[in-house]
């Protein structure tokens, strides 16, 4: 039933996707006749020009911020999520705290971040981290909660202590969900770049896009969007590859 995907399929569907997206975009541009939606050709030209310019540096810096945030958020969110999923009594106590703070827009905490962390990269990274931390936490917690109890008792009967359970049951058992949350987190992290990179920086793809927007240079803005899309895409592919490697057993 499940056949191994042919080698070329990946690239081909990428190309087709891009063509479809460009086509839809082109149609939109034609229909709206608004400068806010430039035709794809202009944006592509601008993209190529920008690539020769500083766009790569912007991308690199954003990549750094996104990756550091993602790793930080996962490093805190995954163990905490598993811990809460594993201990429903504690979760019942902590959950209200999460549920009360998660929906609060993090922009309002900006002054606090700025006071505590300054206006440099750190406050940006913490802002992004905080936002995706919740996503990773909730996903991991729910996955750990729903993990079949049989695995746990089976490994406990082998003499596993709490630490062993994390390592041999919860972490691998929740890994598919953790990777899902990393996918979500990645998307969110990139989407909030436009928040984090609007202050005290002249670098980053978020800055690039918002700067183009405020100068109403829509072609350049869409060049930035193209770059962002591609960067996200590459990161996603890497996550997919990671999943293939780490969760072999799911795909049997």
């Amino acid at each position, binding site marked *: 039933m499940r056949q191994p995907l042919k080698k070329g399929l990946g690239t081909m569907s990428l190309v087709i996707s891009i063509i479809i997206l460009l086509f839809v975009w082109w149609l939109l541009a034609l229909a709206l006749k608004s400068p806010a939606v430039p035709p794809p050709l202009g944006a592509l030209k601008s993209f190529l020009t920008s690539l020769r310019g500083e766009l790569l540096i912007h991308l690199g810096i954003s990549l750094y911020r996104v990756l550091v945030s993602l790793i930080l958020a996962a490093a805190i969110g995954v163990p905490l999520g598993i811990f809460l999923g594993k201990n429903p009594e504690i979760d019942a106590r902590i959950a209200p705290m999460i549920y009360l703070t998660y929906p609060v827009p993090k922009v309002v905490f900006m002054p606090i971040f700025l006071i505590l962390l300054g206006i440099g990269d750190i406050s940006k990274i913490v802002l992004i981290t905080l936002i995706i931390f919740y996503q990773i936490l909730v996903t991991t917690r729910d996955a750990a909660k729903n993990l079949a109890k049989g*695995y746990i008792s089976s490994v406990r*009967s*082998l003499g596993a202590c709490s630490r062993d359970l994390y390592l*041999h049951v919860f972490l691998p058992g929740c890994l598919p969900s953790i990777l899902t949350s990393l996918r979500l987190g990645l998307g969110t992290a990139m989407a909030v770049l436009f928040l984090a990179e609007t202050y005290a920086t002249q670098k980053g793809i978020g800055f690039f896009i918002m700067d183009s927007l405020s100068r109403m240079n829509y072609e350049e803005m869409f060049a930035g969007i193209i770059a962002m899309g591609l960067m996200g895409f590459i990161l996603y592919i890497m996550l997919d590859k990671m999943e293939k490697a780490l969760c072999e*057993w799911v795909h049997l």
Partner: protein
Amino acid sequence: MQDYFLSIKSLKVLYEQKGETVTALDSVNLSLNQGKRGVIIGPSGCGKSTLISVLAGLNSNYSGEVLIDGRPPTIGGETAMILQDFGLLPWKTVWDNVVLGLKLRKRTTAEINVAVATLLEKLGLCSLAKRYPAQLSGGQRQRVAIARALVLEPRLLLMDEPFSSLDALTREEIQDFLLEIWEETRLTILLITHNIEEAVFLGQKIFIMSSGPGHIQQEVENGLAGASHLRGKVQFLEMCSSLRSFLRGRYSDAATA
């Protein structure tokens, strides 16, 4: 009064779920000496697995007294178990599943490799070491579960229908192998089976459980246990058929009751 290695007194286990209460075990009394092999037989749903899970320390929600070597059951430790549904981790290969217990006990890699390789060899699993459980047949999975328990060299081995998915011959081989191990290490074994021949062949003491909320209805001392040469002989078959009639009689009792 004797000090038993395994001693259960008026054990009662309830499953409670949204209002409904299921009494799985009621007034179970059972004792077994150190180094003995006990076998439990009883109708489906009578509470055998529940009993094993209490002994394994997986279910501490019971009333009554349960002592293993004088102490209440704890998880892990010197008890190993084979769960009815095998309990293999789908994300670990056969090798890693079997190795896990030893790793948790912090054995050296060299030690582990030797022990596991020998055991897999014995159980005919060598060529499957790198596969995941999902890539095995039912019987192969069951053998992995057996390997995982045996490799621990436990003092108490709890087995819940450990050979149910094996063909008759493989089953007999592994029964023999289990006896070999027992001869060597004199561990205490408590085994659940539905196979009366198996019960007679392995069980020095055979516990017959009643249906409904289960309790031990009959305890049979079995002198024939472990005698390979008697398998299929008249004496052996007679023992089997007397057990069978007992079970049947008990059943019809229940029907008329």
